[in-house]
């Protein structure tokens, strides 16, 4: 299966210690392309059909009141794109930091199971990493970045 579609696979032919080892085998992603196509067609069909049928059969009455943003029946005050709490930006930044830690831990976890002989070394490495992470985490906590009031 790997070498039949040269466009989608980057396999090393042979020789070298890594004989037959695929650098990047994209064949498993072919079904994902199908699903992507189905899903895009579904989304376009659903929204398009709704729009088309609404034009054909449905009633459309545009009134200024109906077109105005909903504010519990009161007249609209100003624009909705106002300033909002800086907390949301903080959460976004902290998310990037911590999500990268998570992603970093995944290969470590896989290696931990497979490299049985080096487990103590891997364990100490991760302890050091988490210790540094914990210092940053405590700093963020003490500065009140996790506090919502």
């Amino acid at each position, binding site marked *: 299966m790997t070498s039949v579609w040269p466009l989608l696979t980057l396999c090393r032919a042979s020789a070298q210690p890594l004989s037959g080892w695929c650098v990047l085998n994209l064949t498993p992603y072919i079904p*994902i392309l199908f699903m*992507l196509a189905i899903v895009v067609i579904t989304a376009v069909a659903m929204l398009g059909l709704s729009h088309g049928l609404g034009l054909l059969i449905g009633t459309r009455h545009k009134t200024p009141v109906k077109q*105005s*943003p909903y504010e519990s029946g009161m007249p609209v005050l100003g624009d909705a794109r106002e300033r909002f709490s800086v907390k949301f930006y903080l959460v*976004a930044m902290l998310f990037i930091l911590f999500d990268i830690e998570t992603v970093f831990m995944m290969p470590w*976890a896989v290696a931990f*199971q497979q490299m049985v002989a080096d487990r103590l070394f891997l364990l100490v490495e991760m302890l050091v990493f988490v210790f540094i992470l914990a210092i940053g985490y405590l700093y963020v906590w003490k500065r009140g970045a996790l506090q919502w009031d």
Partner: protein
Amino acid sequence: MTPELKGFVLVAVVKTAAVFTFLMLLVAYSTLLERWIASWMQDRIGPNRAGPKGLFQPIADGLKNLLKEEVIPDGANKVFFVIAPAISLMAALIIPLTIPWAAPIPLEFDMTLPVLGRFVHHGATPATVTVLPIGFLWVLAISSVGVYGIALGGWASNNKYSLLGGLRATAQMVSYEVAMGLSVIPVLLLVGNVSFVEIVSVQQQGPFSWLALPLALSAFIFLVSGFAETNRVPFDMPEAESELVAGYHTEYSAMKFSAFMIGEFTGMVTISMMFVTLFLGGWDIPFTHWDEAGGMLQVVATAGVFFVKMLFFLFLFMWIRWTLPRFRYDQLMALGWKIFIPMGLAYILYIAVALWLVDGPLGAASTALRFGLLFLFNIPVLVLVFRVLDRGRLIRGVSVHLPASASRPARAV
């Protein structure tokens, strides 16, 4: 193209179409299920007009939403307003592709079609649309894409409720994604592979080798994060109707609203499937090795078992909706950032040390012994978390501790 590749593509097309149809039907009927369960729990009559027992209700709802008038509010960014529900829907629907739902399907054919040529398939095909080498990282990666739909929809509506709902939803989903990512790392530690197929096969090795036992705290964090990721009660902050009307989809009508709903329900289905696969053995039938032998009967039986397990979690989502009140927003963020993240990190290290001890000095030979020892390691952690640290404050929710005199039953006069 060789006949083998053509056979693979043909099988892939059939499986994709089947999974897509099944997902759409399941999602449509889970909306009905939700309304049935709601009516049952509130002791009232649920939907019963469209068809026998209201069985055609999802179809009626779909048709109604197709014909509804679309309202796009003034000042809304039209492009993003239309794209947002589509993103939400598409991202949700391509996630469950990689989850195996049954034992491998035996499939042998060698046929020649008039124009297309020869198709060959030998051996068994896995009962999932595709087996990706990145395994469940695909699920984690694509589930982040769904955030774009909600954030864009909230922002594009030009409505203050929508904007706040979208912001809250984004912050919440992003926060719990970290917790969820941390909670699956112990699974990697134990299995040593990201592939779903491997994860399921590890859990088939013994009667008690479902990962929910040796990784109990991970399972708990994953389930709670899953509720938060899908914006379900008790974490339905983005749609808190008493504060934000309907949150990010306040301004949405007709099929665009349906698209958001389908996205949300598909999210629930995905989380249920993920939990079953990661922690409850996937399609494994416990206490028997009969299901691993292969053959068509096994495929049907294992698919049924997987479906039942998944339905239980769908039911749990709806059960909890009518059981627990909503969190406050600061409590929600504190639970994610101050409790689950440090707890997840500490648990990863704990499991790593436990694994090193079990495989090294303790020298457990069999899988059953390894998992049993790991479960023993979990008992002090569970006691620590639920009895000592929690003390009935958070996990048991808003229990009010009445004074002794108040809890005495009233005497009949």
